[in-house]
C-alpha cells in the first residue's frame, strides 16, 4: 500500500499540476465540470476561454481558496490544498489584491517576509523585479497613486518575489501596455528557461500562441488541448480564436 502511494507520488511529480475529475458547483450551477488537467513541469501553459468558462475557479481550487465539490488535484505531487510545497508556488489573482496604502517596496517586503525570503536575497529580487515591471522610480510611492496597469505590475512582482517553481497567473497582462506586455513575455520566457512552470489564463489569443501548451475551456470543461501549432493544424485555422470557435461548435454539435 505504502509502496503504491510512493509510486503514485513519483509518477505525479512529473507533473507540475494534475487534476482528477475536479468539479466545482455553486448552488447547483457547474463552474468546473470534472476537469482532468495535466501540466508537465517547466512549460508555459495557457488556459483560454470566455468569461465563466471555469479558468479562475480552477486556479482558485488549486490554490486552496475554494474547496472542490468533487474530485482532486495536486501540485508538484502534493494533493490540494497544498501545505508542504506552498513555498514553491506563486499566485497572482485577477484582482489587483495588493495593499493600496502601502508603497510598492512595502508590498514586496510583506510578501517576501511571508515567504521567509532572506533580507539579502530580497534586495536582489526587488531590484530585478522592479526593473522588470519598470517601476524602479516609483518604489516608494503608495500603490493608490499608481495607474491600473502599474498596480497590475506590482501584483505580478509580489507573486514573483520568492522565486516560485510553479506560477499561477490569472490574467497577468490585462491593462498592461503592449510594450510592457512584450517585456512580460520575455520575462516569462526567462522563467521557463530557469525551469519554472507557468500556468496562466488569458483573454488575448495572440498572446496564447506564445504558450507551449494551450488548454481551451468552455462551460467548465477542457474542450481542446495541445501546442498552438498543433491546434491550428488540427482545426485548419490560422489563429487560436478561430480554432476556439471550431471546437466550440464541435462541442455544441
Amino acid at each position, binding site marked *: 500500500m505504502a509502496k503504491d502511494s510512493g509510486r503514485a507520488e513519483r509518477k505525479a511529480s512529473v507533473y507540475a499540476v494534475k487534476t482528477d475529475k475536479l468539479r466545482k458547483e455553486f448552488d447547483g450551477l457547474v463552474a468546473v465540470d470534472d476537469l482532468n488537467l495535466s501540466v508537465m513541469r517547466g512549460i508555459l501553459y495557457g488556459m483560454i476561454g470566455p468569461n465563466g468558462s471555469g479558468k479562475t475557479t480552477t486556479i482558485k481550487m488549486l*490554490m*486552496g*481558496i*475554494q*474547496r472542490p465539490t468533487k474530485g482532486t488535484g495536486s501540485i508538484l505531487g502534493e494533493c490540494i*490544498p497544498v501545505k508542504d510545497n*506552498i*513555498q514553491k*508556488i506563486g*499566485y497572482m*489573482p485577477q*484582482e*489587483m*489584491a*495588493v*495593499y*493600496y*496604502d*502601502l*508603497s510598492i517596496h*512595502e508590498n514586496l517586503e*510583506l*510578501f517576501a*517576509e*511571508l*515567504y*521567509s525570503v532572506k533580507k539579502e536575497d530580497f534586495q536582489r529580487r526587488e531590484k530585478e523585479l522592479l526593473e522588470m515591471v519598470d517601476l524602479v522610480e516609483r518604489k516608494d510611492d*503608495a500603490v493608490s497613486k499608481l495607474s491600473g496597469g502599474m498596480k497590475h505590475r506590482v501584483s505580478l512582482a509580489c507573486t514573483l518575489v520568492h522565486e516560485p517553481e510553479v506560477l499561477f497567473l490569472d490574467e497577468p497582462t490585462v491593462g498592461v501596455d503592449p510594450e510592457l506586455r512584450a517585456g512580460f513575455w520575455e520575462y516569462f520566457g526567462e522563467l521557463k528557461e530557469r525551469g519554472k512552470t507557468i500556468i496562466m489564463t488569458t483573454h488575448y489569443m495572440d498572446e496564447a500562441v506564445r504558450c507551449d501548451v494551450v488548454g481551451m475551456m468552455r462551460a467548465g470543461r477542457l474542450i481542446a488541448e495541445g501546442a498552438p501549432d498543433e491546434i491550428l493544424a488540427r482545426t485548419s485555422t490560422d489563429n487560436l480564436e478561430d480554432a476556439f470557435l471550431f471546437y466550440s461548435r464541435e462541442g455544441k454539435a
Partner: protein
Amino acid sequence: MNLDRVLAIAKKNLRSLRRDRRTFAFIFMVPFMMMLVFGYTFGGEVKNINVYIVNLDEGSTEGSLSWTIISELNSTDTVKIVHIYTAADAALDPVNLSIQKVRNAEVWGAIVFEKNFTKDAIWSIAFLHSGHTFVPSNMTLYLDGTNPNVAKAVSGSLSGALQKLLTTKYLLTSPVSIETDMVYGKDTKFIDFFAPGIMGLAGFLVTFMLTIVTFVRERSSSTLERLLTTPVRESEVVAGYAISFGLMALAQSTVILVTGVLLFNIQVEGSFLVALLVFFLLGVGSMGMGLMFSSVAKNELQAVQFIPLVFIPSILLAGIFWPLEAVPEFLRPISSFIPLTYAVDGARSVMIRGWGVEQIWVQIVILTLFALAMLLLSTYMLKRRK
C-alpha cells in the same frame, strides 16, 4: 506559529494606518475629542444655572436675612441670578411672572422670599434657642426638575447659603454630624470616575470598528484571499492583527490619559502600566470580536450596522457613567457579559484605588479569557470561509 510572519502582518497593519492619515487622525482624535467633550461637560460641577429671585421680604430691625442669603448665593458660581424682583415690583405680579419663566424654560428655577421671611426666621431661631417648637419661615423654590443634576445643584446651593447663615450668625448647628473618612478617592472628581471608562470605551469601539472595516476591505479587495495562499496561517493573520490593534488600543489609552492628566488633572493612584495591560487585553479581544462580525458582513455598509449593536449596550451597561448598581437588576446579567465592564472596573480600581495586579486579577483573567476566546473563534471563522 511563525513569529516573523506574525510580525509581518502586524507591520503591514501599522504601516497602512500610518499612510491612511484620515484613519490615523480618527484613531487618535476620537479619544482625544471624547475626553475633551466629556471632560468639559461632566468634568466639574454644574455652574451658572440661571435663576430668578423674588424678594418680597420686608426685613426686620436686625436687617434682612434674605439679602444675606442672596449675597451668599451670588458669591458662588453655581447659580447665576438673572433678575431680582422686590416688593417695589408688586404691580408686575413677580411671583407668577417668575414661575412662568420657569415654565417657559427660560430659567431653571425661581426663589421666592415671602414678605415676613426675616421676621419669621428670627422668631423661629428665638423659639429654637428657648427650646420651643420650630415655626418655619417662608421661602419657596420653584424648580424645573428636567435635569436632576441641575435641580440638585440649585437646591444644594440654596441650602448651603442658608446653613452658612445659621452657623455663622446664629451659631446653630445640626445636632448630629457625620464624619466621613474616604478610604479611597479622597479628592475624586466625577471626571476621575469616568476617565477609565472613556479610555476603555474608545479603545473598545475604535478597535472594533477598525477591525470590521479593515477586514471587510481585505476580503472585498481579495488581499485576504491572497495572503492565505502564502505560507501564512489563519492563526498568524489573527495574531498579527491582535498585536497591531492591541498596540493601537494602548496608544489611544495613553492619549486619553495624557489629555486627562494635563487638562483635567485626573487621578492616577496606581500603576498606569497595569491599567494599560487591561486596555491591551480589551483591545485584543475587541479586535477578535470585530473580525468575527466582519466575517458575517458582505460589505462595509453591512459591517458598520453592527456598530450600534455593540456601542449601545457598552455605553449604557458597562458602568462607564454610572455604577453597575444603578443598572436595573434584570439588565445586570448583560453587564456581566460585556468585557468592557471588567476593563472599566479594573482600570478604575487601579487609577482611583491604587490597586495592583494582585487585587484586579479576576478582571485580568476574564479579559484574557475573552481575548483568547475571540482569537480562537476568529481563527476558526477565517478557516471556515474556505
